[in-house]
């Protein structure tokens, strides 16, 4: 009955017998007492879970009165229940902190990616930067197209600022056919643009890619002279 002894709910005579025995430094009983205390702790910290009914909780709380100082067990039980509540609150706070930490890490990663892209664009805007297959000192818009059966990507720089109501249009020009529209875009303040058109492309029949300046809503066919015309190298 060491558990009841540790709880302080043994009858007075039994309590005294055990106390005398423990004072005698019985190693086995002292070890068993520590085990009993551990078991009590486990049961008491499960108080929010195993407190069977609301009426039981009311009885426990209403029974905790200052004049019952001779029954410190009541405070122990209540303290343990409050401690258990604090543990659950702490667990929830820790979960939220962990989620916030994860969001921060994702934002930091995204920030690094944006920084990397900005650095790339700055490199593109540098007047000394040119496609490796073009001559140094070339002026005017510069750009490189990438093409696959699933779309077309353009990375361009040195694009002129547009008048209001105007936009750039990308075109895929099939062999022996009219140019087909491949999306509209506007460059940033530095004249840099990354334009990606995600759609099926018949790469084998594509002859060239080009840009033109069009009205803001776009058009079915180029209404201005195409530029940055790049042939598509066939298979």
């Amino acid at each position, binding site marked *: 009955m060491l558990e009841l002894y540790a*709880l302080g709910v043994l*009858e007075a005579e039994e309590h005294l017998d055990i106390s005398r025995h423990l004072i005698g430094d019985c190693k086995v009983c002292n*070890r068993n007492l520590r085990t009993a205390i551990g*078991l009590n702790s486990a*049961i008491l*910290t499960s108080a929010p*879970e*195993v407190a069977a009914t609301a009426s*039981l909780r009311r009885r426990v709380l209403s029974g905790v009165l200052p004049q019952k100082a001779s029954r410190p067990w009541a405070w122990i039980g209540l303290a343990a229940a409050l401690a258990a509540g604090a543990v659950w609150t*702490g667990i929830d706070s820790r979960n939220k902190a962990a989620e916030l930490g994860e969001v921060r890490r994702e934002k930091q990663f995204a920030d690094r990616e944006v920084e990397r892209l900005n650095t790339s664009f700055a490199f593109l805007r540098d007047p000394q930067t040119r496609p490796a297959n073009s001559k140094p000192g070339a002026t005017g818009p510069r750009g490189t197209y990438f093409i696959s059966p699933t779309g077309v990507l353009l990375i361009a720089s040195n694009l002129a600022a547009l008048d209001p109501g105007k936009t750039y249009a990308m075109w895929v020009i099939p062999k022996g056919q009219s140019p087909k529209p491949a999306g509209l875009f506007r460059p940033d303040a530095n004249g840099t643009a990354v334009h990606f058109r995600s759609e099926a492309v018949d790469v084998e029949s594509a002859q060239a890619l080009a840009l033109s300046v069009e009205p803001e809503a776009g058009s079915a066919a180029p209404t201005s002279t195409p530029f940055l015309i790049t042939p598509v190298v066939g298979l």
Partner: protein
Amino acid sequence: MMTADTERPALFTNVEGAMIQAVQLDRVRTALARLTDRQRQLIELAYFEGLTQTEMADRIQQPLGTVKTWMRGALKVLREELTTPETA
């Protein structure tokens, strides 16, 4: 696992401790489920109302000897469930 050294306070201050506490709660629930209704009632009266066995006997209108027998049985079950190593 409850051992003679497991007398740490119920409050944990880290995530690992919270996980251990959750496992421990589960073990307590399992242990209490093994008790009879009478045994469980006596455990609640002792742990959550702080009654002595004499007071319990008076509360539930049973002989003191009967209460002591039930309580001994309840604590035996709880010790078996909560003070033996968990198996893998």
